[in-house]
């Protein structure tokens, strides 16, 4: 009767999802290009669902469409927190195809990538306005956080009164400075991690449960 039990279980699970009072919160992963947003999204998705969200690359603007991973169940202290992750394209105020030429890309491909990246930024901003219940803001800890994009995005997120978790990524790199990010956004808690190496992910999950549970 294992099959029947499984079927019954999955029906009741579907029903509880359908009729639960609260849908999973939709958490947008935001940040500048190449901060490690997709690496983090993949890390979270793999840890809790076994699947990945999208391809990672060291070339900026690899993610040019928002990608969703739904019903990611994170268990913390015996409690389950269910979220939908939205991995968004990196936000920037300038997109220039010549940047991609350095990565051995043909001009046509670079121009197309640039156009798609720009559409991606528009999409990311649109999601921020309409469709997210909380934000994981990912910063590359080796880069200066005092940028117009970061200031503006954090400002918008605050004005929406969305819960925001700031992550200082790439702490596996020698030149990373978590302190610099803490100083940049003293009104928020900053959690260090390396999404690539999986360093400090336990704390990240604690924070996710705390902020978005």
């Amino acid at each position, binding site marked *: 009767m294992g099959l029947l039990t499984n079927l019954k279980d999955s029906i009741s699970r579907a029903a509880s999802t359908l009729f639960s009072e609260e849908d999973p919160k939709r958490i947008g992963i935001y940040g500048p290009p190449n901060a490690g947003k997709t690496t983090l999204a993949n890390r979270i998705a793999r840890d809790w669902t076994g699947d990945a969200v999208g391809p990672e690359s060291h070339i900026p603007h690899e993610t040019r469409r928002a990608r969703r991973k739904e019903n990611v169940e994170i268990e913390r202290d015996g409690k389950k927190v269910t979220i939908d992750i939205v991995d968004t394209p990196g936000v920037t105020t300038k997109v220039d195809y010549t940047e991609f030429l350095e990565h051995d890309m043909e001009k046509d491909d670079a121009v197309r990538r640039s156009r798609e990246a720009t559409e991606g930024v*528009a999409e990311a901003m649109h999601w921020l306005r309409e469709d997210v219940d909380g934000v994981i803001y990912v910063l590359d800890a080796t880069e200066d956080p005092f940028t117009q994009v970061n200031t503006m995005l954090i400002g918008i997120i605050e004005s929406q009164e969305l819960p925001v978790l700031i992550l200082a990524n790439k702490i596996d790199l020698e030149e990373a400075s978590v302190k610099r990010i803490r100083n940049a956004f003293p009104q928020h808690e900053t959690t260090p991690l390396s999404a690539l190496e999986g360093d400090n992910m336990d704390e990240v999950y604690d924070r996710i449960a705390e902020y978005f549970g």
Partner: protein
Amino acid sequence: MPHQCTNCGRTFADGSKEMLSGCPDCSGTKFQFRPEGFDGSGSASDGPGSGGTSSPGEPSDASGERSGDAVSRRVGSAAATVRDLVGGSAGSDATSARRPAGESADAPPEGESGPGSADPEDDIIVAECEPVAEDAAQADARGGLATTGDLPDDPGTDATEEDVPEPTAGTDDSRTAVSEPDSETADRPDLAELRRELNEQFESIRVVEPGQYELNLMELYDREEYIIALQEDGRYSIQVPEAWHDGDD
């Protein structure tokens, strides 16, 4: 040589990076702005603030001739305003004072012994904010970010000399109070006004040339319709909110 150390009188080209970590000669961190007209004739004894006569970047100047420069400055101001309006901490935010602080101020840009001059990073702002026409050195300085190693020391640990300002009353964090001048909050135009100015001057996506785009994030965020596809000629397809369809069909 628009910048001059108020301590030893050494002059620096506009946009010079040298002065970002203090005067190389005397380690002074106060500089005055010497417009081109004063070139060569000025002396350090003139005192700070004499360059204030040329201060550009008046937020109310909406003519938009220098659109790129002016807009980016206003975007910075808008961002600061967004954060401050939302932050709710009555101007006690250190980060908002960093870049945008000097940018919207119409007071003499530097050399004043006013609040914030104890913070070495405030000198960085000053270097960015006053020129009307950006030259190569300025563009370079704007693009290059000083690493923490380039700075004299952390704010607070190296708050030397007499001009450490009084902490703003009513804030509980002295570190943040130091870098927020009172006048800043008073002079700041409200968010709606800034947003309107931005929207008038800068469309949400500007095609510089095929493959090169400039984006106005605030405008992209503000618009109800959603840009889904760009074309090389600068046209783009949008997805309009569902409510808009009702009247048409």
